[in-house]
């Protein structure tokens, strides 16, 4: 492996002090499951500095408050998938975290890392879109709250400044009637999603009231299927409605062809996953 230096960050103040002094190409080491692979594959151009933030305990907890659930950015996928209260409130998110990598990866990989890496195929991100998550970004100059959909600008690209840290993820503590996350990959474990769909919805008097759908791995960033959501609003979950929603999302999604799938396949699968998600909802309702 390439030789590099690691600075163990002791506190946010320590990080801000270092940032004020200036650093060459800083990279945060959280769970390390992506960063160390990038280093091994020589994808980072030296010189660079690895900032090991994994010891920042203040970023490791989950808080349930009146209006929000706050998840520290260093909380691992394994901690999220197994959290009973998160499962009740945000099943799409816990499902998604459960599908990431393998137990070994989930025990290390953090939600903040998954967001910061900004892969369009990242599993934890589509559920955060449907639940309306916001990110708390902090640096030595100050702090800001950013809606998840405003954070990403392209594959691997975000509005985050190099020494700005994702401190926590805040999700409105709103109970929905249904939530799910479905993904297609080459196999069950250790496979990047070819396409993924997060869905969360509420019902009122038997009709769907508020259905949010996000699609992963079909564009440069995660996208919301807005037209499909609008179509579903106020409708009952009937077989005809489910079929038509599948047609709409297929037209709405504009995926690309890459080494994992063709555009045509992805379009069809958007429809297939949505039909499956809505059918499952109908069956549990």
């Amino acid at each position, binding site marked *: 492996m390439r030789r590099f230096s690691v600075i163990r960050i002791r506190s946010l103040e320590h990080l801000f002090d270092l940032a004020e002094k200036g650093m060459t190409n800083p990279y945060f080491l959280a769970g390390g499951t992506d960063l160390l692979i990038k280093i091994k594959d020589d994808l980072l151009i030296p010189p660079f500095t690895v900032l090991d933030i994994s010891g920042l305990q203040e970023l490791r907890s989950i808080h349930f408050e009146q209006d929000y659930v706050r998840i520290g950015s260093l909380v691992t996928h394994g901690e999220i998938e197994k959290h009973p209260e998160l499962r009740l409130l945000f099943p799409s998110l816990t499902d998604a975290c459960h599908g990431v990598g*393998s137990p070994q990866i989930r025990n290390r990989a953090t939600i903040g890392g998954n967001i910061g890496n900004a892969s369009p195929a990242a599993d934890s991100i589509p559920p955060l879109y449907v639940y309306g998550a916001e990110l708390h970004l902090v640096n030595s100059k100050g702090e800001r709250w950013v809606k998840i959909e405003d954070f990403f600008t392209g594959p691997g690209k975000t509005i985050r400044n190099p020494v700005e840290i994702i401190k926590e993820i805040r999700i409105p503590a709103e109970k929905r009637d249904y939530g799910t996350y479905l993904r297609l990959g080459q196999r069950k474990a250790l496979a990047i999603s070819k396409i993924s769909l997060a869905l969360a919805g509420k019902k009122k008097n038997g009709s769907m009231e508020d259905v949010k759908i996000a699609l992963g791995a079909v564009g440069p960033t995660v996208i919301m299927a807005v037209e499909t959501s609008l179509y579903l609003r106020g409708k009952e979950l009937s077989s005809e409605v489910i079929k038509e929603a599948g047609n709409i999302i297929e037209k709405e999604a504009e995926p690309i062809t890459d080494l994992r799938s063709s555009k045509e396949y992805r379009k069809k699968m958007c429809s297939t996953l949505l039909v499956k998600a809505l059918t499952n909802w109908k069956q549990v309702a």
Partner: protein
Amino acid sequence: MKKIKVKVNGKEYVKDIPEYKTLLDFLREDLFLTGTKRGCGAGECGACTVILNGRAVNSCLVLAVECDGAEIKTIEGEGENGKLSPLQEAFQHHHAVQCGFCTPGMVMSARSLLDRVPHPTEEEIKEAIEGNFCRCTGYKQIVEAIIDASRGGS
């Protein structure tokens, strides 16, 4: 170089190591615990699985400096007093070892499961070893061995 203190298989070590060294290389090259294997080096195969502070991890994706103060268990800590553990005996009994390269990681993933869930379902076992590739056995014997070990037999 950085100084780290770790407890591996119950024994304490204090070592000076380069910051870029992975836990896997530290175990193999500094502690000479070569039971932990290097497969892909990218978190895909699970051959390097060890238990870090109670959780199974790929030691190729952890830096040794991150382990300062940590407790680690490797395959060398599975048996006691030169005897195989019941889990290892079950692997032997079921012919769950062919070439043997995946076995240390496989046993560590199974150990981490059995420590948390003493009587797992077959589904839980399959999930616990989903990050461990075996290219010989087809997994059947491995799953049977873990089931047997969880029932106290071998």
